[in-house]
């Protein structure tokens, strides 16, 4: 016995020496994969030694028993402090209790050597069965390797038992594997972005690497059984191999540092790994800090996560039809009420996955930027995913795509389609993983896997951007839980946005400046965004809105940290958001930005404060319109831009702009203001100047004319006579008494939509009414009114006055049910009461009309009695109109 013990001790000593050598080699720069292979080989020698000793002690061990390495050990991959998985395989003739002690002794010897052993004892027949509750055993069995004992029995295991098991149960095993992986990912919040990730179990970790291997094995068997082609991803795909090596190296580093099987990259470990430059190859900064090192980690983890997601998508059943509903509009066909393939030029969607068409005449659709971008727009709209082959082809085609990519409005059109799709986040993540997003927007490269290293930021900067976009789209559908009420309110604001695509563009670009280490990332982001917007050729209003919002994107969060009930806080913040549209964008952005910092960051408390600040600022903006006017010697950038469009006419431009509310100049592009100015130069020939812009949804008609009585009411009436439903309107006048009234309206009878030839007649008719050539009353009586539908939501009528909003006008705010003829009724009443409209702001929210007028009577504000009389008249007029 003593001899055996000293032999065992001798084996252990040899093993310990080998471990020291392996560690020495690792610290001298050996690769992770080499280190774990070396430990595996050393354990082989030790285990075989103990086995031989065991057989010497008890010859029964030598007959009908096989020692098999399974799991990670079976793969020949043993991390420094990983468990050693052993399978003792027994022949049917072997009586288990006879060999139990001998088997236990071997495990004990290994424990004494400082190793953690996970032994299992099974008969061959048991290995043929799949137990869904112990799927882990079957997975470990898939990686088996002979160690010692009965070779014939091992050959049976390898040649018959395991293949038979996989053949018979591959579906069930696959299903269970997908389930277990999903559960594990869910345990980590379905994200690889953790401040202190577990590099084995987190999404993108080493466990996912193993899952990839098992999925491939099982899918191959499934494909053979179903007699279909199996497309194998090259296991030596460079990025994946590099990721595996990196993760292996890091896990070895963790084990040696912690001297146990601890796979958590805690903050101190991150610092140590950065200092030791673990896993870094090629160029790197002079000083590698933890944030830089973690960036490398996340890139590798993302590559593994991508691979495992692809693998799971391949085996998972197709998504439900409802997600693909959007495809019907783009050419999908229904068969027996179920959506079947949807086909577009260059690709189709099969079972929820995009499949590119084959190359024809040497032209691969993957090389066509138009096709590729439409693929991603389809993904964004419907939630379908990119098939494996399609992904590979797009990836390979990137250099050619780069050469053929067209910038300008065509690119913006595609990007818009992607950004505004309900599943935009999904499409953008795929584009980013493939390198396509950086092809379109190179400015995004600086924030790829960029880590903000503090206890608060959960995500890397790029992932934060995608989560932000997901949050915004999440407002489009009803939510449950504590945030449901706030999601509904902010969702309402989102629906009011005239240009939602600009909000998503703002979201995409707002943090691109974080890649530059200048301290003010907002300004850097503006710089980055300018070049992007220039390439997309957005007009100056759209560019101004996006750039202004990026520059101010932290202002609302900053204002929330002040006293939001203090008028000064609201005034100061309102100074940073020039228009209601900018305010809505910034509010929605701030809501989503907070939510995208950390899953628990946005609380109902914060959402309520944000809402309060939003409505206080919205009210302030409406109530300050009248007082904030363009001065006589305006030297603003806008004045310069308009003047630049009219060389030699700067003095006339300044004179034209003088006296207009600031709101007018902030909500128009320089080109539009130039146009209005030019219209005033035509007054001698025709004092009633009209500009009409038709659009299928909301058209726009602008009147530029010298001010006179009942102007606004007459325009409203002329539009009503044509069945136009006014959605928004504004009326401004300058110091010279020129009014610019703009009406945006929807065509209730679709007259203009169905008859392009009527556009001219429409404008001419309005012109005739405004010049008095045609009687409005006659026109109104001769035309049918739009049929009134019963309202879905009843709106309570309110008429309120505010004397303090303006220094020289009285603000009248009317909230009422939006019905045709309302605006005309209101403006006629105001005129009948002797009120001059200085400014009008007309808006519609669902079935609610919100009309704000700044009025004066005999050049002064309305006194209390005049307000009372006016209110009565307005209520009666609205009542009359409703009947």
């Amino acid at each position, binding site marked *: 016995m003593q001899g055996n013990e000293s032999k065992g001790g001798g084996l252990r000593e040899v093993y310990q020496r080998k471990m020291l050598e392996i560690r020495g080699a690792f610290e001298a720069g050996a690769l992770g994969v080499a280190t774990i292979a070396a430990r595996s080989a050393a354990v082989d020698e030790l285990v075989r030694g103990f086995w031989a000793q065991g057989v010497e002690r008890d010859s029964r061990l030598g007959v009908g028993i096989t020692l098999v390495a399974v799991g990670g050990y079976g793969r020949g991959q043993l991390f420094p402090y990983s468990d050693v998985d052993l399978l003792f395989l027994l022949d049917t003739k072997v009586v288990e209790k006879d060999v139990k002690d001998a088997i236990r002794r071997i495990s004990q010897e290994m424990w004494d050597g400082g190793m953690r052993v996970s032994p299992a004892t099974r008969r061959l027949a048991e290995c043929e069965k799949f137990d869904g509750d112990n799927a882990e055993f079957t997975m470990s069995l898939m990686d088996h390797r002979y160690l010692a004992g009965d070779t014939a029995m091992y050959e049976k295991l390898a040649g018959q038992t395991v293949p038979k098991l996989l053949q018979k149960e591959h579906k069930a095993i696959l299903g269970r594997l997908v389930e277990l992986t999903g559960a594990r990912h869910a345990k980590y919040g379905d994200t690889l972005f953790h401040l202190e990730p577990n590099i084995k179990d987190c999404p993108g970790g080493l466990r996912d690497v193993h899952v990839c291997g098992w999925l491939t094995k099982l899918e191959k068997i499934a494909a053979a059984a179903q007699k279909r082609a199996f497309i194998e991803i090259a296991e030596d795909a460079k990025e994946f191999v590099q990721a595996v090596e990196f993760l292996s190296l890091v896990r070895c580093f963790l084990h040696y540092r912690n001297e146990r099987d601890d796979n958590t990259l805690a903050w101190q470990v991150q610092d140590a790994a950065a200092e030791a430059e673990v896993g870094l190859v090629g160029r790197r900064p002079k000083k590698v800090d933890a944030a830089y090192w973690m960036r490398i980690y996340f890139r590798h983890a993302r590559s593994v996560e991508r691979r495992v997601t692809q693998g799971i998508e391949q085996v998972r059943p197709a998504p439900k039809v409802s997600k693909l509903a959007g495809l019907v509009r783009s050419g999908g066909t229904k068969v027996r009420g179920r959506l079947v393939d949807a086909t577009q030029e260059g690709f189709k969607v099969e079972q929820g996955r995009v499949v590119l068409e084959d190359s024809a005449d040497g032209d691969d659709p993957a090389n066509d930027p138009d096709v590729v971008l439409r693929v991603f727009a389809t993904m964004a709209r419907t939630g379908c995913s990119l098939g494996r082959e399609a992904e590979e082809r797009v990836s390979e085609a990137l250099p050619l795509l780069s050469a053929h990519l067209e910038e300008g409005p065509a690119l913006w059109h595609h990007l818009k389609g992607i950004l505004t799709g309900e599943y935009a986040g999904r499409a953008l993540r795929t584009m980013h993983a493939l390198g396509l997003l950086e092809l379109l927007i190179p400015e995004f490269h600086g924030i790829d896997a960029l880590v903000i290293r503090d206890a608060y930021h959960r995500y890397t900067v790029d992932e934060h951007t995608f989560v932000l976009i997901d949050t915004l789209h999440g407002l489009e559908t009803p939510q449950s839980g504590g945030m449901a009420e706030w999601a509904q309110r902010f969702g309402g604001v989102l629906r009011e946005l005239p240009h939602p695509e600009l909000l998503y563009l703002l979201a995409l670009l707002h943090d691109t400046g974080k890649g530059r280490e200048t301290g003010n990332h907002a300004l850097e982001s503006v710089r980055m965004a300018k070049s992007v917007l220039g390439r997309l050729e957005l007009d100056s209003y759209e560019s101004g809105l996006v750039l202004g919002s990026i520059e101010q994107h932290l202002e609302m969060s900053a204002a929330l*940290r002040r006293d*939001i009930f203090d008028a000064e806080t609201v005034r100061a913040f309102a100074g940073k958001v020039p228009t209601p549209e900018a305010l809505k964008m910034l509010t929605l952005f701030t809501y989503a930005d907070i939510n995208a910092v950390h899953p628990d960051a946005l*609380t109902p*408390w914060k959402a*309520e404060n944000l809402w309060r600040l939003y*409505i*206080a600022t919205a009210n302030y903006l409406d109530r300050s319109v009248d007082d904030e006017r363009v001065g006589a010697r305006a030297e603003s950038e806008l004045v310069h831009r308009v003047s630049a469009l009219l060389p030699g006419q700067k003095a006339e431009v300044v004179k034209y702009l003088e006296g207009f509310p600031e709101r007018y100049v902030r909500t128009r592009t320089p080109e539009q203001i130039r146009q209005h100015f030019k219209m005033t130069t035509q007054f001698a020939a025709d004092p009633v100047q009209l500009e009409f812009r038709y659009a299928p949804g909301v058209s726009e008609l602008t009147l530029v004319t010298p001010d006179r009585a009942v102007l606004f009411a007459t325009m409203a009436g002329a539009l009503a006579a044509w069945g136009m439903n006014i959605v928004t309107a504004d009326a401004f006048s300058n110091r010279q008494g020129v009014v610019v009234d703009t009406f945006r309206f929807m065509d209730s009878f679709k007259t203009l939509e169905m008859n392009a030839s009527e556009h001219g007649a429409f404008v001419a008719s309005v012109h005739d009414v405004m010049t008095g050539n045609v009687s409005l009353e006659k026109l109104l009586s001769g035309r049918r009114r739009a049929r009134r539908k019963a309202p879905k939501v009843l709106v*309570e009528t309110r008429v309120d006055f505010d004397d303090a909003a303006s220094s020289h006008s009285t603000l009248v705010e009317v909230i009422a049910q939006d019905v045709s003829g309302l605006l005309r009724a209101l403006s006629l009443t105001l005129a009948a009461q002797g009120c001059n409209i200085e400014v009008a702001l007309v808006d519609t929210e669902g079935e609610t009309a919100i009309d704000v007028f700044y009025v004066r009577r005999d050049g002064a504000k309305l006194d209390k009695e005049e307000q009372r009389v006016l209110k009565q008249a307005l209520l009666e007029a609205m009542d009359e109109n409703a009947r």
Partner: protein
Amino acid sequence: MQKIEAVIQPSKLDAVKDALVEIGVEGMTILEARGHGRQKGHTEFYRGREYSVDLLPKVKLELVVKDEMVEQAVHAIITAARTGKIGDGKIFVSKIDEAIRIRNDERGEIAL
């Protein structure tokens, strides 16, 4: 040991935190809260709808300090949080029987 609970204006949180850190108090718990005392809420109108604020947003700090630190901590909070207007908040002080550090079972003042 005594527990200090301070209900303050949210806009004063950063200043109060800094003031406490300056006197050597680093451990505290911060909770989002709503409430009112004599400071009444108000009503805001937006798009014809009434939004009344009965319970105003507040922040509550909770910290446990040694007996000899209590007055200093209270003074730091008051100085940093005071504006002089109704709604500044309140501070409550109560005795604590025991403090225990979960990680290593340290007890008493050493656990603070």
